[in-house]
């Protein structure tokens, strides 16, 4: 999938993600059966390895710029504005600019980056 095709999917992804996060955050639940890795979720939604890793045969770190091709951090912050006890996507450390990879991993289980310092921030991270 080239960049142009990605653009076409972008809107779809944005809606999908908003719904997905809506279920997770506003419902306060993260159903056990959804605990798959994000790479599988991305693959199910038509994102191929080479869409992120330009050379799919070479293992390379992916910069956050790739995430931003489909995900808008400002929209994301709005979507999670009601999350308690605080909005993870609009915070005092990074505003809306936190690197997605701090929490959301693709090929290993995601982590709650806030938790080591803020014990009450018990987010379930997709």
């Amino acid at each position, binding site marked *: 999938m080239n960049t142009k095709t990605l653009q076409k999917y972008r809107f779809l992804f944005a809606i999908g993600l908003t719904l997905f996060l809506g279920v997770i955050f506003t419902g306060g639940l993260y159903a056990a059966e959804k605990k798959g890795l994000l790479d599988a979720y991305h693959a199910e939604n038509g994102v191929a390895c080479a869409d992120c890793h330009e050379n799919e045969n070479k293992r390379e*770190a992916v910069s956050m710029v790739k995430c931003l091709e489909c995900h808008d951090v400002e929209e994301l912050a709005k979507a999670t504005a009601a999350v308690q006890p605080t909005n993870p996507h609009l915070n005092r*450390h990074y505003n*809306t*600019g936190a690197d997605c990879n701090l929490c959301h991993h693709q090929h290993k289980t995601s982590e709650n980056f806030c938790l080591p*310092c*803020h014990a*009450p921030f018990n987010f379930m991270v997709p």
Partner: protein
Amino acid sequence: MSKDTEKDNKAVDQYTQNVLQNGISRRSFLSCTAMGAAGIGLMGLSGFSGKNAEAAQESHCTEFARSSDGGATLNFMPKPEPIEDSDIAETLTFDVIVVGAGASGVPAALSAAENGAKVAVLQKHPMPVSQGNTGSGIDLKTSDKAGIEALVAKLMNDNNHRCNPALLRQWAYNSGEAVKWVIDRAAKGGATVEDQGSKPQFAIRKVNGYTLNYVTSFFGPKPYTTGDGIRALAKTAEKAGVKFFFNMPASQLVQNNADEVNGVIAKGRDGKYRKFMANKGVILATGDYQNNKAMCDYFIPDLKYFGRKQMDRTGDGFAMAYWAGGVIEPIGHTKMLHDFDAGPASMCDMPFLAVNRSGSRFVNETVAMSLFNNYLRDPENAGHYNQVFDADYMTTAANWPGGKLVPPEGLKNYMPDDPSPKHGVFESQINTHSADTLEELAKKLGCDPATFAASVKRYNELCAAGKDDDFGKPAELMAPVKKAPFYGIHRRVRVSTICSGMLVNENHQALDADGKTIKGLYVIGNLGGGFYGGVDYPLTVFGLSLGRCYTFGYMSGKHVAKL
């Protein structure tokens, strides 16, 4: 510049001489070390942000340095391969490049711009970042000269006489002007800020009988902090023409054939390198290295088990200055570990019974909170301890020194279990509890109830005897814990900052291993050395840390702009 060099080649002071002798520099190299990629992969050196550590693995012939005694190989600080011009997407030229948009970098940038320089700030984060609330300076007009010198002497003592007195004096004689300037310029950018004057400095209004008055900036109350203040100051700086580049971590300094620093290469989020050339100088204000495990393990192993208060302090500037020829202060760096959030800050230094994480008494509680970390370094305690007192504390501790009591109603503001709305605190960090039994309190504090009960019983016996046979605390500071409700503040000291760094002269210019200035390279903030030197950051002057950052930013910006 030639003036600087002449000055620095004159007699070298004791502090500088010691750092040159015992500090760490590139003077001795190990080259082409057969260092395995796996070993390098563990270092977490970033830049050098953690994610880019693998870059170092590609080189089979990496240059390392070793410590002054030749014994330790600093393999966690491999010199990166120079980034080729062909990899540079864009080159921009300014007069001054400031790396780091924090409490020293933003003032430096604004100060340089106000003095006519074209300035760029490269910031790793998506925004300016800073911590704390209070920043302090001395009001020269209303202070005795002898008082200023007495305070400098007091700070020298706090620093275990291991600092550069010239740098302390530079803060002492310029901080009033600088802090006032920060207050004014931050307010112009929309900050909520006030000058609290001498009010917070009640313990040092008189030193050795001499009078002192202060300028004390306060960005608060929490959750509003100096971070918000510095972001407002950055707005003023932008209006003054400073160009900010966010998400732009510096990777390497650019040096010419004479080893003069004349630029910085940074990497944007798009993965592309940009070269920022500096006509006058590069000011490194990148902060400390508390999030770089390998650097901490080597330079300050005491911190191994403590939590960190900051993020992304990976020592980028530390490594860059070092590879440009700078000298790192000798091992045993000064640290700052506090907890002003779990309970009232004004009660943190009051000598209530203190027990460690399991519930055992561990120290003469007259020891300052800023030093408690030295008794809680093991993996079990990891900085956790509890202040314990009973229902009568407002009367039994009424005349104790070291703070101000907050009445029971006010303590509720720090109790996560109490439903009252909270004000002026970080809600995710409050950790004060009350209970009707000692067992219940022990559970709330996370202590072993039996150990906790035995410690309280023993302490009450010592109080009744009027002699602290276990730790020698003065009898008048011994108040028993026997009347419900019982109170406990579960504090957890974590690393605010590490405040030792690179050897600099009075112009904040980096010196090399020969004691010569490195042309074009300036180091300020917590990356700068020579200002502390003790085991821990002293709490003698509230807000000394930020006051020093503002002052040295203000002065170095002006100095470099005028070159």
